[in-house]
C-alpha cells in the first residue's frame, strides 16, 4: 500500500543519527575541513551507533538486520546533513563489506566480515574511479588478467581511507565486464599514493592508488567464479550518493532560510523579497523531489528489482539538485556566504563533487 511514512524502526534510526549529526558532527565540521582530519572520537562515537554492523549477519559478528537500501538512504541523508566528509568516512566500511554481504561467497564472508565487526571503527574501502575525465565504470582502465589467480594493473583515485583499510575492493575489467576483487592490506603490487587534495570533502582522507602486477588469489574475486552483480552495486552506490546529496542540500537550504529571516536589507528581511524567497522555495521543492525519486529507486532495489533506470534518474536528478541548492545557499547569503565563517561555501564545494563521486559510498 502506498505510503510515504518511514517505519517506526527506520524513524528511530533517523532520530538517533539526526541527534548525532546535530550534537557531534555539526560542532566540529568546519574545524575538520580546515585541518583535513576528523577526530577519532567522532568516528568512534559514530561507530557505537552500530550503523555499519547493523546489516552484517549475526554469524559473522554483526547485528543481523536485513540489508535495506532504503533505510541506508534515510541515515545517509542525516549523516550528510551533519557533514559530508564525516558521513563518507563513517560509512566507508560499507564500501568493503556490503558487496560481500550481498554477493560474497561464504568463504569471503567468513574471512572479511568479522574484521569490521569489532568494538572500534575499522576501515575498509573500495577503489572504482580512475583519474581521467572520461572515466566509465563499465569500461575500466584497470584490468584483471586470469593467471591461476588474477593479476591487476591500473590506476585508481578517490579511494577513501585507502591507507588504513583492512582490505580494499578493487574494481577491474575482466573481458567486457567490470568485476570486483578483494585486495588485502599490504598486498604486493598495491601502492597507495599521496593523500589527495580536492576542492571539497577536505576532511575525508582519500588516496590515489596504483596496482602494478598485483596478484590476488582466484577466490578473492567477489562472488567467486561467476563474479558479482556489478550493475546492482553501482545502483546501490547511486542511491547512497543521491541520499548524501539530499542531506548536503538540506543543510544549505535550512541555513540560508534562517539567515533570510534575520538579515535585513532596505528595511526588511531579505526573505521578504521574492528574488530571495523564490530561491528558497525552489530549494525546498527540489530537495523533496530528489528525495522521493531516490526513495523509490532504493525501494525497488530492496525488492531486488532491476532498477538501473530509476537509480540513474535519481542520481542525475540529485546531482543537479545539490548544485542548485548549494549555489543558492551561497547566493542568498551574499558576501557572507563566500567567507569561511559561514558553512554554505563548504557545502557549495562539497555539492559540486557528487558528479565525480561515482562509487564512493554505498548503502
Amino acid at each position: 500500500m502506498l505510503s510515504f511514512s518511514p517505519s517506526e524502526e527506520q524513524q528511530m534510526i533517523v532520530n538517533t543519527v539526526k541527534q548525532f549529526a546535530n550534537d557531534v558532527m555539526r560542532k566540529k565540521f568546519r574545524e575538520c575541513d580546515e585541518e583535513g582530519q576528523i577526530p577519532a572520537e567522532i568516528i568512534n562515537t559514530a561507530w557505537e551507533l552500530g550503523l555499519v554492523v547493523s546489516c552484517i549477519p549475526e554469524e559473522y559478528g554483526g547485528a543481523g538486520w536485513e540489508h535495506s537500501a532504503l533505510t541506508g538512504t534515510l541515515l545517509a541523508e542525516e549523516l550528510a546533513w551533519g557533514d559530508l566528509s564525516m558521513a563518507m568516512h563513517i560509512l566507508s566500511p560499507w564500501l568493503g563489506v556490503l558487496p560481500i554481504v550481498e554477493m560474497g561467497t561464504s568463504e569471503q564472508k567468513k574471512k572479511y566480515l568479522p574484521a569490521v565487526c569489532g568494538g572500534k571503527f575499522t576501515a575498509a574501502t573500495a577503489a572504482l574511479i580512475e583519474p581521467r575525465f572520461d572515466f566509465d565504470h563499465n569500461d575500466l582502465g584497470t584490468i584483471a588478467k586470469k593467471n591461476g589467480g588474477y593479476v591487476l594493473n591500473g590506476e585508481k583515485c578517490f579511494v577513501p581511507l585507502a591507507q588504513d583499510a583492512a582490505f580494499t575492493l578493487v574494481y577491474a575489467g575482466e573481458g567486457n565486464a567490470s568485476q570486483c576483487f578483494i585486495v588485502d592490506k599490504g598486498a604486493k603490487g598495491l601502492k597507495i599514493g599521496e593523500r589527495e587534495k580536492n576542492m571539497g570533502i577536505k576532511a575525508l582522507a582519500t588516496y590515489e592508488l596504483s596496482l602494478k602486477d598485483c596478484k590476488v588469489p582466484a577466490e578473492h574475486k567477489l562472488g567467486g567464479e561467476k563474479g558479482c552483480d556489478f550493475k546492482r552495486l553501482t545502483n546501490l552506490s547511486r542511491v547512497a550518493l543521491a541520499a548524501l546529496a539530499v542531506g548536503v542540500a538540506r543543510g544549505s537550504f535550512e541555513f540560508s532560510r534562517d539567515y533570510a529571516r534575520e538579515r535585513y536589507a532596505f528595511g526588511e528581511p531579505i526573505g521578504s523579497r521574492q528574488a530571495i524567497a523564490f530561491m528558497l522555495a525552489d530549494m525546498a521543492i527540489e530537495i523533496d523531489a530528489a528525495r522521493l525519486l531516490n526513495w523509490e529507486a532504493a525501494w525497488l532495489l530492496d525488492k531486488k528489482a532491476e532498477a538501473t533506470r530509476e537509480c540513474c534518474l535519481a542520481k542525475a536528478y540529485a546531482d543537479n539538485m545539490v548544485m542548485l541548492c548549494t549555489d543558492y545557499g551561497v547566493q542568498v547569503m551574499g558576501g557572507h556566504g563566500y567567507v569561511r565563517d559561514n558553512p554554505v561555501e563548504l557545502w557549495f564545494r562539497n555539492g559540486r563533487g557528487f558528479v565525480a563521486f561515482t562509487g564512493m559510498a554505498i548503502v
Partner: protein
Amino acid sequence: MIDFELTAEEKAKIDEAHEVALKYFRPVSRYYDEHEHEEPQDIIDFMWSNRSKGFVTGLGVVGAMMVEELCWGDAGLYLASPGPGLGGAAVFAAGTQEQWRKFLARFGEGKPKWGAMAMTEPGCGSDTSAIQATATRDGDFWVLNGEKIFVTMGHRALDLSEGIIVVWASIDKSAGRAGMKSFVVEAGTPGMKVEKKEKKLGIKASDTVTVTFDNCRIPFGNILGKAEVKSKTEGFKGAMATFDVTRPMVAAQALGVTRAALDMLRDEIDKQGIKIRYDLPRSKQTALEHDFIEMEANLRAAHLLMIRAMWQLGSGLSNALEASMSKAKAGRAATLITQRAVELMGPLGYSRKYLFEKFMRDAKINDIFEGTGQINTLVVARRVLGFTRDQLK
C-alpha cells in the same frame, strides 16, 4: 513503511482510465483541437454513461492518477467530460451535507451536467482579494452583481446542462478578505448570463467563458460557509481547503500531458533505432540522452510530489505546503518537458501532423490556472520561511 506499490485494485482502475484515454480520447484529440467549440458529443455521452467508474470524480491518489491517464489521452477532453468539476470540489470542501445533497446529487442522475467555479475577474486573477463582485443580502436572498472571466466549463454548466457554478463575491468590501464568500448558483437562474467564449492556445475542447451577474437572486442558503464576517482569514478558508485537493489534481493533469509527450518522444527516437542508455557516464552521453534523462527524472519527481500530496490528504495529514509544491513543480516540469520534446523533434515537433506541438500548447495552462507557478512558489516560500502574506508579498 515507505511503499510505492499500489494495490491490484488501484492499478486496475488506473489501467481502465488509460484504456479510455487510448481508445476514446486520443483518436479524436487532434480533431477537437482543430474544431474549437464543437461539442465532443460521443465523448460526453461515453463519460457520462460511465460516470459510476469515477473517471473524473475519484479522490485521493487513485483519482488523481486516473486524471493523469485521461490527460495523457487529451487534457481538453478530460476537462470537457461531464462532472462536478471545480465547482463540485468547492461545494464538497466547504459545503454542508444538505448542500452536498442539493447541489451534488444531480451529478449522479439524469442528463450530463457540469460544475464550474468563478473567481477570476477582468481586473484580478492572482490577487483574489481585489474581487469586485458583490453579494448583497435581501431577506431570504442574496443578490449577486459582477463579471467573472475565464470560467472553465461555464458554457456547458450553465447553457447546456442543469449544472452549477460557485461564484466568489464580497459581502462587505470594507472587510477585505474576510468579506469574501462563495455562493452556488444553479443553471437557469435569472440575472446570470454566459457571454464571451474564449479562443485559446490549447485545451480547446474545454470551454472558457465570461459569466455576468446582473441582480442575480439566489436563496440565502446557497452561501458556502458562514454568512458572518469574522476573522481576517475566514472567508478564504473554503478556497484554501479546495486548493489542497485541486492543486495536486491540476498537477496530475499537467503530468498526464507531459508523459504523453515524453512517451511519444521515446517512441519516435526508438523508431530511429536510438535507445536511451541510462548507465553511461556524463562524458559519453549524447546531448539527446542527457536531455531525455533530465526530462524523465523531472517528470517522475513531479509525479511523486503529486501523489505524496494526495496521499497526505487521504491520510488526514495537512498538505497545503506539499499541494503547492506539487503544483509549482508540475507546472514547471510540464513547461520544460513538452517544450523540449518539440525542440528535440525538430520539424516533426513543430508540425501539426504530430501531437508534440499540441502537447506543448495544452501543457502550458497548468502553469497558469489554479494559481500560477509564481503564486504557488509564493505559497511555498511563505510556508518555509514562516512569513505571513504581509511579510512576503
